[in-house]
């Protein structure tokens, strides 16, 4: 039995419902807004709690366990505390930019949240240049950090922002090269089409070796892009106080914090979508009965499982490895990841030409 999924984004459904009337359209748009806003809130609260809990257990501690069962309301209480804290702007800071930067930093991941397919019908906008959009907007994320660090008029903030700029511009290359591999395989930039192209198997294993290598490169470079350990030199507590957000306090600081965690979800969700099949269940070619069993799990659950597996991986790496030095960071990117990424792209194009996949593509 071969299941086919009806793939339709919320934006398309809203456009279709225009034939019925304006109210269903507005309803769909409200649903889309609710989805993104709810994701921001739930992820902000949940991931921060998860990070603290997981970090604690990696370090032989217990983590928050006082507010609510297993401390699940700790983040809520912290948010309330941050809301009531004084919002300090340094005297010589560029006030407008200083106050604007956190929103700029938060806007990037929220924009990408809108194009990630969480399920066949749970996607806000399915744009045909999805991968291009994601890498372009992802690169824009550095603006918030640069503006925030520069406008603070603090040497640590500025150094942190400059480091962030250099780091993100460098690792953007490797990330995009890894994304291109998947674009080559699936023949589309549309994220939903990339997911449906993995019906017979995920790209991470279907292209022998190349997919796995691209996945690893993407994981490393996206970890660097979202400024997490071991690549968190823009913050670098031991070197730069708190890096680009040294001068931020209260709610604006928490916006940077929130942006960091939503960025992590975005990176994990994209890795899941491109390499691990997104919401597509785990299928192996023509094993019909196995695939039918896997189809029992709903697509949204598949997406969440994969995304949270990668989030766990990112956290695991963070709480194990020490921070890289600035020159080591650049060394890793320009002398290792970039050449390997190019070689991998050439290998991928050879595979795509010869259709040398496990379970070859039917169309070629």
């Amino acid at each position: 039995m071969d299941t086919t999924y009806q793939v339709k984004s919320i934006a398309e459904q809203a456009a279709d419902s225009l034939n019925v009337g304006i109210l269903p359209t507005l309803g769909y748009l409200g649903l889309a807004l609710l989805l993104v806003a709810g994701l921001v809130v739930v992820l902000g609260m949940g991931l921060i709690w998860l990070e603290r809990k997981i970090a604690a257990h990696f370090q032989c501690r217990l983590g928050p366990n006082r507010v609510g069962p297993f401390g699940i309301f700790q983040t809520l209480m912290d948010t309330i505390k941050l809301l009531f804290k004084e919002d300090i702007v340094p005297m010589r800071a560029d006030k407008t930019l200083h106050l604007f930067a956190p929103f700029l930093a938060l806007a990037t991941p929220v924009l990408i949240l809108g194009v990630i397919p969480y399920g066949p019908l749970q996607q806000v906008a399915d744009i045909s240049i999805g991968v291009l959009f994601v890498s372009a907007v992802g690169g824009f994320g550095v603006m918030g950090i640069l503006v925030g660090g520069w406008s603070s008029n603090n040497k640590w903030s500025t150094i942190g922002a400059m480091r962030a700029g250099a780091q993100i511009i460098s690792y953007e290359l490797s990330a995009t090269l890894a994304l291109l591999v998947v674009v080559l395989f699936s023949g589309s930039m549309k994220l939903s089409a990339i997911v449906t192209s993995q019906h017979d198997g995920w790209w991470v294993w279907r292209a022998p070796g190349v997919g796995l290598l691209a996945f690893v490169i993407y994981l490393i470079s996206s970890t660097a892009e979202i400024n997490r350990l071991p690549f968190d030199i823009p913050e670098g507590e031991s070197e730069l106080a708190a890096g680009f957000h040294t001068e931020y306090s209260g709610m604006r600081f928490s916006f940077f914090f929130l942006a960091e965690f939503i960025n992590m979800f975005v990176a994990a969700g994209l890795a899941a979508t491109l390499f691990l099949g997104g919401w597509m269940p785990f299928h192996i070619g023509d094993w019909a009965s196995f695939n039918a069993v896997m189809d029992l799990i709903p697509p949204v659950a598949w997406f969440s499982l994969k995304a949270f597996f990668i989030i766990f991986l990112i956290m695991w790496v963070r709480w194990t490895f020490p921070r890289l030095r600035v020159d080591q960071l650049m060394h890793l990117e320009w002398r290792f990841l970039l050449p390997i990424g190019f070689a991998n792209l050439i290998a991928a194009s050879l595979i795509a030409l010869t259709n040398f996949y496990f379970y070859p593509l039917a169309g070629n």
Partner: protein
Amino acid sequence: MALVSPKQVRYERRSIAGREIPVAVAPTLPRHSVPARFFSGLYSLLTGMKLTLRYFVKPSTIVTRQYPNNRETLKFPDRYRAALKFKYVTVRQPITDWEFPDPKSPTLRLPASLLRDWSRGYEDASYHKCTGCKNCEVACPNASIRVVTRIGEVTEDREVDRFIWRMDSCMYCNACVQACPFDAIEMGHDYENAVYDRRLLVYNLNRQAGPPASLVTEEEDITVRRRMMSHRERCGGPIPLNGHALPNLHALPVTPIVDASTGSIERNSEAES
């Protein structure tokens, strides 16, 4: 990772500054190729991840103690030093005087299990081991200990009256415990010693004034034994509160201490200053 094994080390004599000096020469380590370094680095990273994963999945590795909730089960290392305390020798002694003692008698320590003791016909009395030799006072590097002695009524000999220990200036060096020839004091595990007034950090360590347990137990008559010892409060005496009253704390009765060795009367302010 390359390490030098002992077999690779050569031993030879070299002339350095005009003298023949034996030296051990380690070979220059070869720098491994890039793939070898890559895989050894990868291996070390994976080793680290394996370790942290073991911490993550094994709850038994958690070292956190949820302190205020675990007072009952809290365990301390043997060498943990929280507060100096006296060691006591518990003696089970038959009760010969069946007269019920006066509860307000200042010379008698009333144990909580007095009634049970009387019904059994013997009582558990604990006596300290301090002879008042002042070795600890001499050993203390910052004068946190003051041993006041008296001439006992029964023994007519020098014995400890008050063993005053200032927690506020003690630095827990353990020198007093090591200096004690009679094993009379030890560093106890009584934590939670915080107070709101530092004058409360001056303790009277001995529960009774009197001769050490070895002398007390030589005396057969229990009434004489009781007369040897007189009760002391933990924060008692003129020194702890220095004669002042604090909010919620009454000033303790101030009685001048007669130092048996010199016969002079100590002034209250002397110990505080």
